[in-house]
């Protein structure tokens, strides 16, 4: 009975890999958030493990250093009983001169059920998805997208506010280099929020409005109307430092302090994808303060990734259906 009911359902996703939020519909994103809500409860059990992905192998293919995202995927996989194998660039054959595609094909030959890919180059997960038949989840690629971060941001806001529709969201910082910003712009605007990107003019790419958001070049005037303020990390490793005179100056104009928050809505949510540069984007009082939901984001990250591993690991035949 139960079996028959499921057999007749239409697949809810049109994609077999998660490369970005750009190609997803509002319904698909909402479906992923609903699934996340169902998986979250497992994280509070005394025995945090379900047998769902028993016998499935997930490879964390990280061409770029990451602790939070990698750990989050690893925990998510293990809580679903998948075997999670970590593969990082420093110890990989890439350093011996193997090409990206050879690495991917070699890993594919070991028959994993899913690849989680983090890469410095924008578009690497997309390229690999055309080379290998294994489903891929993008764990952040260059300056392109970070869809799982986008989804956990959406989930966190929805959990606190009950909805996304109609909210005003500011994304503050280095929009130019931020994959989180792109995923958030797509995600929040698809779900009906009004997104404003804020930063120094050097860090806001021209034409960003085409993604469906507004741009502002001063932080303080936009604070009072915002429901959500997403502070991005200044990414020195991506050359953020070349776009403003000094960290102190950046912090003065685009950092968030308690003083600037005095004019904010009483229930504003302060978010940050981490790792936080304390004293640059956020003063410690704000990072640890009542408005901050930064640790909720991290907590929800595991639930989001559990839902995604479940949805993409199952050998869905969405593409052929």
């Amino acid at each position: 009975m139960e079996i028959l009911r499921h057999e007749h359902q239409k697949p809810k996703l049109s994609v077999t890999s998660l490369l970005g939020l750009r190609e997803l519909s509002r319904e698909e994103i909402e479906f992923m958030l609903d699934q996340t809500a169902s998986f979250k409860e497992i994280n509070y059990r005394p025995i945090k493990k379900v047998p769902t992905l028993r016998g499935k192998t997930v490879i964390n293919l990280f061409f770029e250093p990451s602790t939070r995202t990698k750990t989050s995927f690893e925990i998510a996989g293990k809580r679903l009983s998948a075997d999670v194998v970590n593969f990082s660039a420093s110890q990989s054959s890439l350093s011996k001169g193997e090409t990206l595609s050879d690495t991917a094909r070699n890993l594919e030959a070991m028959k994993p059920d899913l690849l989680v890919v983090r890469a410095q180059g924008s578009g690497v997960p997309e390229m690999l998805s055309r080379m290998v038949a294994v489903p891929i989840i993008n764990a952040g690629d260059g300056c392109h997208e970070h869809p799982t971060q986008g989804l956990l941001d959406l989930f966190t806001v929805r959990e606190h506010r009950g909805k996304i529709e109609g909210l005003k969201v500011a994304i503050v910082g280095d929009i130019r280099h931020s994959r989180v910003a792109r995923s958030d712009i797509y995600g929040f605007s698809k779900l009906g929020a009004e997104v404003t990107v804020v930063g120094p003019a050097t860090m806001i790419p021209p034409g960003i409005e085409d993604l469906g958001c507004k741009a502002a070049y001063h932080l303080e005037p936009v604070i009072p109307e915002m429901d959500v303020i997403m502070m991005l990390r200044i990414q020195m490793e991506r050359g953020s430092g070349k776009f403003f005179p000094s960290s102190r100056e950046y912090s003065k104009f685009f950092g968030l302090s308690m003083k600037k928050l005095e004019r904010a809505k009483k229930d504003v949510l302060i978010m940050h994808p981490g790792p936080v540069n304390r004293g640059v984007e956020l003063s410690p009082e704000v990072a640890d303060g009542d408005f901050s939901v930064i640790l909720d984001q991290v907590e929800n990250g595991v639930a989001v990734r559990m839902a995604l591993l479940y949805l993409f690991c199952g050998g869905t035949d969405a593409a052929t259906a």
Partner: protein
Amino acid sequence: MVKKKKVMDSEAIRRALMRLAHEVLERNKGVGDLVLIGIRRGGEQVAVRLAGIIGEIERSEVPCGFMDVTMYRDDLYHMRHQPEVHKTEVNFSVEDKVVVLVDDVLFTGRTVRAAMDSVIDLGRPRSVQLAVMVDRGHREFPIRADFVGRNLPTTRTDLVNVVLDAEGKRDRVEVVETGESKEKE
């Protein structure tokens, strides 16, 4: 060729639930350590109704939770695509409790097997019992229900729908004879 046949109306369902409630109480000598867990989604309304009736009879509330067992299914990867997972909401400890699993239809027994695994992951109950609105036969596991609303002979290709709405006005159990074979090869 689809034939729909109503086999229980709201009165019949009301009486069956009443009897089930009394049987559960008689077997367990009251509500002492009793908790109900409805299996999503069919068992959800049945559990709510049953908990309501038991509460009225004993004048004390019996904890009622809901469980989605999708994550525990053995046939997960035999389906064409991943089924939607619903929330598990068991906001009480099952440790040393008498857990009555509640579902609408008992068929192959696979759902109940998954539900038992699922309960055990939440703690160690003293015992687990099973109450269903309809037992339609065709078991594939050594599982039987402790409390049955109605035994219903069916063929494997029939669909059995237990419809319980919130007000209880349009409650019904119907058998849909599809005539087509939906069995998996």
